[in-house]
C-alpha cells in the first residue's frame, strides 16, 4: 500500500500511509483507538475506497472495488465483530456469497474443502452446527476458515485476541505461525504491546492516521519505545497508592441467577470494601454480564443476598440500585448507558429524572437541568458545544465522561464499572482511571469488570476471576500474575498450575 489516504468528512483517517507485507510476514499494526488501523485494513479489504494512493498486489497496481473483489484476489479479513449469522449453520455461513452448482448449494465440495483445511492448518468445525452454539473462540476459528476457504493468501485480523483467553490466544498464534510458514502474509491489528512483541515479525505503528514508525524485530524493542511511537508522549499509567481499607460497602453472599447473556451467576460471594477497587477478570460470557445487570437492577437474583452498606437490595430495579447508593457504568455506553438522540443535558439527568431539583411534581425545571449539566461539563472537561448538544456527535471518550460525570455527581458509595475504557484512547483512559483512584482515595469502593488484564492489574487491589458463573479464584493483586489469572480464566485451578510448575 503506497500513500494511501482516506478522509471521512473533516477527519483524515489515513494520511499517506505506506505498508508492505511480504510472504511469511506477520505484521502487527499497532496504534491507539482512532489511529486509523481498522480504516486502513478496510481499504485493503475493499470496504472503503481510498481517496488517494495505490495498492499493489504482487507488484501490480490493483483497484479493489469491494469485499468480493478482495476475496477473489486472495485477501481475507477477520473482523473484530464477527460477520456471522448466529441462526445459520457453519456450512451456510461458509457458503454464503459463493456460486453454487446447477443453481443449488454445493455442499459436497464444501465438505471436501473443509477436510483439506483441517489437514493443512488443523482448523475444523462441525458444519451442521448453528453458529449460535459456538463459543467465541470457535466463532473466530470459523471466520479464519471462511477466509482460507476462499483461498486467501493475505489474512487481516482485527483485534483478534480481544475476545480470547490467554490460552486461546496462544492457539491463534500457533495457527498464525503455521500459516506464515506456508508463505501466507498476515496483518494483525492490535493495541496490546505484549502480543505484538510475541507474535509479530514486524510492527508498524500508526498515530492520528500517519505511520510514526516501523520496527523490524519487535520482540527486541522495549515497551516504552513502542508506546512512545503510539502515543507521542510518555503517558505513565495511573499510580495506585496504598489506602486504608474500610467497612464492607457491597456484599454479595451466595448469589445465583439464571443464565443471562452467557453464564448466570452460581453461588457467587464477593465483597467490596471502602477504599478498595475489586477487579473482576474473565472471558466475556462467564457471568460478567449477569453480575453487572444484577447489580444494576436489570436482573433478579434467584438465590442469595445483596447488601449495599448493610441495606439489602430487595427488588431488581435500577432505581433500587440507585437508592442504595450504587453508581453504574454500563458496558455499552451507546446502547445501554445513553440515549444518543437526546441532548447532553438530558442524558446527564436521565437517572435522576423524577428527583428535585430537576423536576417537581411532574414538571421539569429546565434551568436547574441546564445549570447542573454545565457544571458537570466543566468539572469533567467534556468536549462538546454545550449542554444542548446532541449526544450522538461526541467521541467515545466524551461519552464515557458523561456517564462518569452523572454517576459520580451523587457521590455513590460503590461504583460498578463494566469495560469502562473499551474503545477509549490513552488520554481518556487515563482520565477514567484517575477518577476511579480518586474515588478510592475518598474511601469509596469500586467493582471493576474488565477484559483488559493490564487495566485490572494496574487499578485493582484485589482481583476475582469468573469462570462459568462462579468465582474461580480471588487474590490480592500483589500476588497475581497474568499466567495465574489466565489459568483461572480457562477453569484450571491455581493448584493445578503450581503442580505443573
Amino acid at each position, binding site marked *: 500500500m503506497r*500513500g494511501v*489516504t482516506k*478522509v471521512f*468528512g473533516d477527519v483524515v483517517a489515513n494520511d*499517506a500511509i505506506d505498508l508492505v507485507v511480504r510472504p511469511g510476514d506477520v505484521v502487527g499494526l499497532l496504534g491507539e483507538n482512532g489511529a486509523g488501523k481498522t480504516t486502513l485494513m478496510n481499504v485493503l479489504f475493499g470496504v472503503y*475506497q*481510498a*481517496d*488517494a*494512493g*495505490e495498492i499493489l498486489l504482487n507488484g501490480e497496481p490493483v*483497484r479493489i472495488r469491494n469485499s468480493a473483489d478482495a476475496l477473489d484476489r486472495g485477501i481475507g479479513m477477520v473482523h473484530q465483530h464477527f460477520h456471522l449469522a448466529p441462526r445459520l449453520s457453519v456450512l451456510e455461513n461458509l457458503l454464503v456469497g459463493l456460486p453454487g452448482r446447477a443453481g443449488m448449494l454445493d455442499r459436497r465440495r464444501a465438505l471436501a474443502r473443509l477436510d483439506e483445511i483441517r489437514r493443512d492448518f488443523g482448523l475444523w468445525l462441525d458444519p451442521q452446527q448453528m453458529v449460535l452454539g459456538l463459543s467465541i473462540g470457535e466463532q473466530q476459528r470459523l471466520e479464519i476458515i471462511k477466509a482460507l476457504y476462499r483461498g486467501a493468501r493475505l489474512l487481516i485480523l482485527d483485534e483478534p485476541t480481544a475476545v480470547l483467553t490467554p490460552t486461546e490466544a496462544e492457539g491463534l498464534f500457533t495457527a498464525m505461525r503455521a500459516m506464515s510458514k506456508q508463505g501466507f502474509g498476515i496483518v494483525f491489528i492490535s493495541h496490546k504491546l505484549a502480543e505484538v512483541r510475541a507474535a509479530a515479525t514486524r510492527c508498524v505503528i500508526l498515530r492520528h492516521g500517519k505511520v510514526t514508525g516501523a520496527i523490524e524485530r519487535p520482540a527486541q524493542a522495549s515497551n516504552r519505545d513502542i508506546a512512545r511511537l503510539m502515543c507521542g508522549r510518555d503517558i505513565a499509567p495511573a499510580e495506585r497508592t496504598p489506602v486504608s481499607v474500610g467497612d464492607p460497602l457491597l456484599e454479595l453472599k451466595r448469589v445465583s441467577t439464571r443464565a443471562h447473556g452467557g453464564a448466570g451467576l452460581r453461588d457467587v460471594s464477593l465483597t467490596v470494601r471502602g477504599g478498595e477497587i475489586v477487579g473482576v477478570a474473565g472471558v466475556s460470557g462467564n457471568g460478567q454480564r449477569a453480575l453487572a445487570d444484577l447489580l*444494576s437492577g*436489570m436482573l433478579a437474583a434467584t438465590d442469595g443476598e445483596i447488601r449495599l452498606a448493610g441495606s439489602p437490595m430487595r427488588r431488581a*430495579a*435500577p*432505581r433500587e440500585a*440507585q437508592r442504595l447508593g450504587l453508581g*453504574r457504568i*454500563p458496558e455499552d455506553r451507546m*446502547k*445501554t*448507558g*445513553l*440515549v*444518543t*438522540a*437526546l441532548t447532553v443535558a*438530558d442524558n446527564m439527568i*436521565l*437517572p435522576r*429524572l*423524577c428527583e428535585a431539583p430537576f*423536576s417537581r411534581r*411532574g*414538571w*421539569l425545571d*429546565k434551568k436547574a437541568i441546564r445549570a447542573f449539566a454545565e457544571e458537570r461539563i466543566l468539572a469533567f472537561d467534556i468536549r462538546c458545544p454545550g449542554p444542548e*448538544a*446532541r449526544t450522538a*456527535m461526541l467521541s467515545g471518550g466524551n461519552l464515557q465522561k458523561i456517564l462518569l460525570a452523572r454517576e459520580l455527581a451523587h457521590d455513590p458509595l460503590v461504583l460498578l464499572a463494566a469495560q469502562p475504557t473499551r474503545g477509549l484512547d490513552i488520554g481518556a483512559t487515563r482520565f477514567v482511571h484517575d477518577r476511579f483512584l480518586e474515588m478510592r482515595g475518598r474511601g469509596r469502593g469500586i467493582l471493576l469488570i474488565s477484559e483488559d488484564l493490564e487495566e485490572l492489574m494496574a487499578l485493582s487491589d484485589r482481583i476475582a476471576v469468573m469462570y462459568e458463573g462462579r468465582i474461580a479464584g480471588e487474590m490480592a493483586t500483589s500476588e497475581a500474575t497474568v499466567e495465574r489469572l489466565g489459568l483461572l480464566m480457562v477453569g484450571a485451578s491455581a493448584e493445578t498450575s503450581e503442580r505443573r510448575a
Partner: protein
Amino acid sequence: MGFRLEPRTSTPAWLNAALSLGAIAAALILCAGLIALSGTDVLAAYGIMFDSAFGNVYALSETLVKATPLVFTGLAVAVAFRAKFWNIGAEGQLLAGALLGCWVGGFANVPGPLAIVLMLIAGAIGGAAVALVPALLRVRLKVDDVVSSLLINSIVYYAMMALIEGPWKDPMSGYPNSPPIQDAADFPILMEGTRLHLGVVFAALAAPLVWILIRRTTLGFAINAVGENAEASAYGGIRVNRVLLTAAAISGGLAGLAGICEVGGIHYQVMGEISTGYGYTGIVIAMLARLNPLGVIPAAVFFAAVMTGAEAMSRATGVPVFLAQVIQATALITMLVALLFTAYRIRRTGGPAGVGAH
C-alpha cells in the same frame, strides 16, 4: 465528481419548516399529473380546491370544522410515535370514543356545559381503553403493535355497525344511526350560518397542551427517551412499560376526543360514516408535523383543505374525489424523503481514487 450523504451535527430551525412546506409543494406538483390525466386544467382544478377551502368565510369555517378531528388524531399519533408505539389504530379509537361519548350524551340529563364535559371524558376513556389493547399485547406478549392496532380497527368498526344496526338503533329513524345525544349536550355553534362548533376551540387548545406535556413534563421526557432508546431508559430507571401504556392511553384518549367532537359538534349521533379515515390521515399529519404538537395544527388545516377542496373539485370537474387520498399519501412520502435532509447533508466528494493528491 460524486455526491455523498454525510451526517449532520445539528439541524437549523428554518430547515424543519422549509422541509415540511417543500414536501407539501412536491406532493401537489406530483399529483398535478393525475389531475391532468383526468383531462382537467391543473391550475383551474387547484384553484377550485383552494377556493372552496379558503375562498370565503363559510369555506374557511368548513375547513376548520374538518380540521378539528384531524388535529386530535394528528396529536394522538404524534404522542404515540414519539414513544415508538406504532398506533395505527387511531381510527378504531376514534370510533370507540364516539360510541362511548354518544352513549353518555344520550342519557345525561344535566345542563349543557356539564354534559359536554362528561361526553368529552367518556370519549377520551373510550379511545384510551381501545388503545390499551394493542399496547398491553405488545408489553406483555410482544405482539407487533402495527398489526394488532390495525386489526382492532376492523373489530371496532364491525362492533359499532352491529350496535347501531341492532340493539342501539335509533327507533325514530329508518337508517342505521344511534339515538341522538341530548339537545343540551350539543356543542354550541360559534358562528351563525356555519357549522363551526366548540370542538374547534378544544382542538386549538389541545395542541399547545400536548406540546407542554411533551416538552415540560417528566412524562413527556420519559416518552421521548423511551421512544429513542428503551434499553437505556430502563437502565436509567425509567419504567418503560408504564410509560408505553401511558403514552398509548393518552394517544387513544386524543383519538377518542376526535370522535366525540364529531358527535357533539356535527352529527349529534353515531353513524357508519362518522369517520372517513381520519385516523389514518392523522398518521400523515403527525409525520408532516415532525411529531411536533404545534406543527399538527397547520398540517391538519392543510389536509382539511385538501379533503374539502377535493370534494368540490370532483363536483365541478371530472377529477375523482380520491385525489385527496393520493395527495395525502404522496405528502407523507415526500415528507419522509425530506427528512433525509435533516439527518444528512449532501457533500461533493473529491476526485476519483487513484489520482495522487500530493
